[in-house]
């Protein structure tokens, strides 16, 4: 691992809470690591677990899924489904040997700009500790 390694994080944020939270962090001039590539989705409930797998395959060193707090979902219950599904995915990824530090899930509401900063810092820090995730890359495949 080179000293100036910067992890690549893909974050799936729900439109109604976490994306607005990240927006608030920006407008409030809260500084947070620039390693995250944000992908906005309408709800964490529509995050297909294969998104996470695909992100790791295509060069992400860590993945973050963030949505509304339980009970706050714009669609009433999308985040409850996501919690169950992605919880299982986390167990499965750990079992096949993907470092548990590479995949995180969080609840960040539209008013939690500071919490967003903390979540990103933690995710980036974890991915940095875990190191570059070369083993799973599509690009690694030669001829």
């Amino acid at each position, binding site marked *: 691992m080179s000293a100036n390694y910067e992890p690549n994080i893909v974050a799936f944020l729900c439109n109604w809470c976490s994306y607005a939270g990240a927006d608030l962090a920006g407008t409030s001039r809260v500084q947070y690591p620039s390693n995250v590539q944000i992908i906005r989705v309408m709800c964490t409930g529509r995050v297909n677990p294969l998104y996470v797998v695909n992100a790791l395959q*295509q060069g992400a060193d860590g993945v973050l899924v963030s949505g509304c707090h339980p009970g706050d979902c714009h669609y009433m219950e999308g985040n409850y489904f996501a919690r169950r599904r992605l919880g299982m995915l986390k167990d499965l990824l750990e079992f096949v040997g993907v470092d548990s530090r590479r995949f995180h899930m969080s609840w960040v509401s539209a008013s939690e700009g500071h919490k967003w900063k903390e979540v990103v810092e933690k995710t980036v820090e974890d991915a940095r500790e875990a190191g570059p995730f070369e083993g799973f890359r*599509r*690009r690694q495949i030669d*001829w």
Partner: protein
Amino acid sequence: MSAMLLKKEKWPDFVGKLTGKKVWAPQGEGEEMRFAPVNEGEAPDLAYGNTRVPPKQAVFPQTETMFRFQVDGKEIEEPQLDQETVLLGVRPCDARSMAIVDKLFGWDENDPYYFKRRELVTLVGLACSEPGINCFCTSVGGGPAATEGLDLLMTDLGEDYLLEAVTEKGELLLKEAGDILEEAGDDRYKEKEKLAQAAAQKIKRSVDHEGIPEGLPGLWEDPLWQRVSASCLGCGTCTFLCPTCHCFDIQDEVEGFAARRCRMWDSCMFNEYSLHTSGHNPRPSRRERTRNRINHKYSYYVDKFDVIACVGCGRCINLCPVNIDIVEILRQVKEAL
């Protein structure tokens, strides 16, 4: 044909002489055997039945990159195929399969990817002394010591191997091995003949294919297809592990701007194999797909190339999860004729 003798203790020396060439041999344990590159300085152990995955992957890899390109560019980058490869311990049935598949890839237009690899590969065969229980090579034109498709045939004579060159490539190998070989006497050659005969005797299963190639088209709507395919799962095990199955699919794989075009094994047992863009599928169920598999091997191929596209290795019988047995199907076909 010149026959030479190799003492078994000199086997590592023989492998060591193959410098500059990549050596492939059966690797793995028990039933998980497959052909894979041998580490330098190692001599593979040849005491095995047959590999699960046939050696066709050495000339027709499961996934082959045809070229690479940038989505926004015009350049293409082609693979360098110049590595000479020696396959050690190929069973005569598998070698024969390559001779059969050559006809398909060389029909009309020569397939450059296939033939480039084919020219660079030397097949060193190993005659069977203990055929498996589902082997039936003798009834489709092969045999436990058949040489078709091979460059060099080895026979295990207990203390020694008898080496017989079949082609120039094989002669070359013998020449390169030089003084570690000994001249084989006539008696050793006879010993080998006897072993081959004994092995052929041990093959219990047989297919009587007389009349089948001509008769199959007439059985197109026969209820037998429904019967034999009812339990089919529609998986690709039989075709992927068949040494003569050669269907492939070509797809582009893109990641960002980097892309590659590759071809990979496909299987006529899959639904989307014959699925049209319109959504219509001319082989909509497992009945038609099973019928196609048998027809292709025992009728279409015979029509076109005058040889049955089945070498009797028994893999599809051994590994079918639901005991669909090609010998049994052919018996039923014969009955229905």
